[in-house]
């Protein structure tokens, strides 16, 4: 199993911007080609934003067509609280919903804009 230490990879304990999420996304894609399983160690991180999660894990599920079950079969986590894991669960769930909507030919950009407060 390949272990990735997030704070070292991102070079910051604050996991905020989508760009940082994309660094993790790129690394995950590259490692998934080589290893079947990855452990992501979040030790030492301060906080993450939902945009960081969306742009890393959410985008990974969308780009590689990964189901909720497959995601957690391939990727495990350490150094996170139960609440943090719940947020990741939600991100993965939302990626599946977004994919389902795309399959149903829903204009997702328009759809999600409606869910943003004015």
């Amino acid at each position, binding site marked *: 199993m390949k272990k990735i230490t997030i704070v070292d990879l991102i070079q910051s304990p604050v996991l905020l911007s*989508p760009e940082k999420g994309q660094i993790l996304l790129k690394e995950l894609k590259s490692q998934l080609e080589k290893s079947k399983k990855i452990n992501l160690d979040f030790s030492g991180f301060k906080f993450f934003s939902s945009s960081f999660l969306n742009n890393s894990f959410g985008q990974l599920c969308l780009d590689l067509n990964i189901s909720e079950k497959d995601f957690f079969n391939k990727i495990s986590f350490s150094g996170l609280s139960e609440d943090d894991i719940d947020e990741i*669960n939600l991100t993965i769930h939302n990626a599946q919903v977004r994919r389902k909507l795309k399959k149903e030919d829903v204009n997702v950009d328009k759809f*999600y804009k409606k*869910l943003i407060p004015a």
Partner: protein
Amino acid sequence: MAIVIDASDILAKNKSLPVEGFFIDTNILICYKDPFGASLNNVKQTKYNNSITQFLNRPKSSGVKGYSTLSVAIEFYKYIQIGYFYTQFPNDKFEAKKFKDLKEKDSDFRGGLQTYFNLFKKIFNKEFPILTKNSDKIDYLNDFDVLKADFGDHALLKSVLAHDKKYHGIFTGDADFYNYSEEFYLITFNNKIIAKATSEKKLYLNK
């Protein structure tokens, strides 16, 4: 009169807030938690989400705590309920009866809803606990003007003002709060509110 606090300025200059606690409005909570991942591929919304996340993670170190009210929890619950329905039936109109039936009879629907409800519970139990003031009667309706603000905003302000002054802060993006004459701190990233407050000398200037 609302005293406006520029949240960007607080962040940029690492300033302290003049309150010990503040209350979060529903619009900020939705943009912060982004329950449906709506900000993905939306540059403007992602930027806003990051600013809010930074701001909300900053005051923890300075001892300032964020709270919520029952009215905010109800508004957020409605947002989740209706938003979840639309993710399942994007072309249908929301129907409370259909929602109830699905909740009772469709285990997949129920399972998905539970994911969002876990988030709901976490927010209002831990992150922004609902702070209630039970000892006094709060008159929510006497001075409510439907043309001035939504009832949810009005109820939030009334709940906040029922608390000690050290909690008289509201973190919001909603300009309607600016029109209230009551004294409280309006914490915001909304540039229109900040510009108006600057010109009317209502901007909080921390030395």
